[in-house]
């Protein structure tokens, strides 16, 4: 059995960490948090130069031709550094949608730009507040153009390309849309985590091209979300790991009643529970990574398990990181809130816990394993 990342993958991880230590310090994250800039374009360029965006894209399509395990390693480091870049929108969502649904010609046209990072992609799905369901999607595809409004589009202000789910008489389909079209209006949204950008996109007779079969849009979207769930779960455990480390360090440095607060069992046990949740989530993420990299039949179960587990671990670690820091944890100056914000953003990024738990149990229901 070899259920660990390889030496080369660990080397890649270290290389990404070093780059992020230099170019994605907490001051850089705060720069995006506190300004109107939708993302850190300098960091994005650094990642482009390293070829990180193309990690899991075939070299014939402009990528590096490595695999999903390498991409998981990258995701964990981006999550750890709270990287304020449109990586998940462009790579985990748009690229995966194209891999799942596009034909060869479409891939050749769209993937190289995303692989180099020259173009930024995203997924536009939600139209109303609340869970995404087939009947919440009203956007119309008629006579070769899209009309309607998508809310909560991640990195909607900076994306060049969007994968859009919309309906025509045959049901739901996925479409690739050039967002530089003059019929697109963008409106920035304020969210709990301003270090990431979200916006509302209004489409007024915007041209697009269908991806995959007509009427197959919901099925394709679920496949995309499963793949993205594994990758985002790695971002989540990266963030959770850092939050746990911050809390552990602080518990050793901070004295009260003449002793380090980390010597009190009330604090120790809180940190031990964070560690346990994180280890379980990490192991589930590895399972997800294995399923994604081998395209296993178990991917829907593995993805939902990694997703639920990593969401809980990051929320658990980020909230108790604040608790460990006491009053200082509630200052703007300390970084605790950056992790708290990001953990709660990622918790709903691909749909909330109850939706993913329901997907998970549906997989258990259909499996014979009882």
């Amino acid at each position, binding site marked *: *059995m*070899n*259920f*660990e*990342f*390889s030496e080369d993958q660990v080397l890649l991880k270290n290389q990404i960490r070093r780059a992020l230590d230099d170019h994605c310090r907490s001051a850089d994250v705060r720069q995006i948090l506190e300004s109107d800039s939708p993302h850190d374009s300098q960091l994005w360029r650094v990642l482009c130069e390293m070829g990180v965006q193309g990690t899991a894209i075939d070299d014939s399509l402009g990528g590096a031709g490595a695999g999903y*395990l390498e991409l998981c390693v990258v995701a964990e480091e981006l999550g750890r550094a709270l990287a304020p870049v449109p990586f998940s929108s462009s790579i985990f969502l748009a690229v995966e949608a194209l891999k799942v649904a596009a034909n060869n010609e479409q891939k050749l046209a769209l993937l190289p730009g995303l692989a180099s990072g020259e173009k930024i992609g995203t997924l536009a799905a939600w139209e109303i507040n609340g869970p995404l369901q087939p009947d919440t999607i009203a956007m119309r595809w008629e006579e070769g153009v899209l009309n309607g409004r998508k809310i909560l589009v991640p990195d909607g202000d900076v994306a060049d390309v969007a994968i859009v789910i919309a309906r025509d008489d045959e049901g739901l389909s996925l479409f690739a849309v050039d967002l530089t079209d003059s019929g697109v209006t963008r409106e920035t949204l304020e969210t709990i985590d301003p270090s990431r950008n979200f916006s509302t996109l209004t489409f007024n007779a915007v041209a697009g091209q269908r991806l995959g079969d007509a009427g197959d849009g919901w099925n394709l979207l679920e496949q995309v979300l499963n793949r993205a769930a594994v990758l985002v779960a790695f971002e989540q455990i990266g963030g959770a790991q850092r939050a*746990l480390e911050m809390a*552990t360090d602080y*518990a*050793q440095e901070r004295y009260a009643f003449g*002793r*380090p607060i*980390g*010597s*009190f*069992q009330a*604090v*120790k*046990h809180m*940190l*031990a*529970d964070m*560690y*346990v949740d994180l*280890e*379980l*989530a990490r*192991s*589930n993420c*590895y*399972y997800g*990574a*294995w399923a994604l*990299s081998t395209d296993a039949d178990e991917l829907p179960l593995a993805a*939902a*398990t990694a997703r*639920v*587990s990593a969401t*809980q671990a990051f929320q658990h670690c980020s909230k108790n990181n604040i608790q460990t820091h006491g009053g200082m944890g509630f200052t703007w100056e300390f970084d605790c809130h950056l992790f708290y914000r990001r953990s709660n953003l990622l918790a709903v990024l691909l749909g909330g816990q*109850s939706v*993913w*738990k*329901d997907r*998970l*149990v549906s997989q*258990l*229901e259909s499996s014979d*394993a*009882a």
Partner: protein
Amino acid sequence: MNFDDTPQEAEFRSSVRHWIDDNAPKYLLPYLEKASFATMDLGDYNANDESKAWRKKKFDAGWACLSWPQEYGGVGASPIERVIWQQEEGHYAALGGLFTIGEGMCGPTVMSYASEGQKKRYLPKLAAGEEVWCQLFSEPGSGSDLAGLRTKAERDGDDWVINGQKIWTSGAHHSDYGMLITRTDPSVAKHQGLTMFFLSMKSPGVEIRPIKQANGQSGFNEVYFTDVRIPDAQRLGEVGNGWSVSLTTLMNERLSIGGSMPTGFPEMLALVKSLQTGEGLAIKDKAVRDKLADWHCRTSGLKYTSSRMISALSRGETPGPEASIGKLVAGSMMQDMSMVALDLQDLSGILVDPELAELSARFQAMLLRSPATRVEGGTDEILRNIIAERVLGLPGDIRADKGMAFSDIPTGR
């Protein structure tokens, strides 16, 4: 990243599988499949006899105490081969319960501290299952604070004379030998005045009384020592060095107990897939689904954590105190799950008759057994301390008895 055996591991697995297939007591399988949560009922077959017979068969074929050196009755197999053996042994592993403490805890300690002659005398018989061993550690006044033990050993010529009481000794009534930790010097700090011995459980003055547990069963014992004599030659380690000898044993205890915890999740899934509630199948209920997802995540997390540990073994590394999480997670999960399982059965949840209760009353057994899981071999609280101190590196708690002579430590009641 893969779950595949190396060619060498695959070859080992295949030979194990063939041997088990040819030799295992298949007539016991129907009983063993139902064994769970520390209960094993072999019907008309005698559990001890069957356990010893299977053990002997394994020993004769070279499959017992795999990781021990050959001269002491083992085969010098690698840790990963031991894991493969356990995986392949499957339900028959339940027959090994009688020997777990001997193989996992007493044996390694004897190997580290006994004389060569003693090792040759005792270890092969332990490995063969001809002699059963227990560990005599916990006392009524010292559980988590093991070093606070009071059982007294006093030197008398070439012997030591033992007086005191041990408790929670698994299998003492089936055991031939025991490993005993005692206090030899109450005038020094508590960790410094301890000494380890082994003795025959048939020694005059040893009295074993089964404890009737909260769940009505009796797997543990109290052991009383009244002027029991142990030759000095049966001392393990130096006088006053018993604490560090005991650590050898305890690290092995947590590894062997935490290694393959049942969680009860497969049983839970089977229950909610079959149980009708007022609104239809239990698994269709939103509240049930929410909890089921959480439990699945924890079960799956444990499973793949264990895969990560096996990978470390496979690379020749030793898993650290991270192994503590298995029992910590599984114990309270079993307890929570059994309460929900009974609740779903509504008033019939109180039934303990396997003929009448859902799933042969396994959840009722789990409900009544799981409190012990959260205490035995390190309480949840001690395990959290271990994780906090040894994994996360947090400082130890401040001890009120630090540096005090043992005899000056306040005891309460």
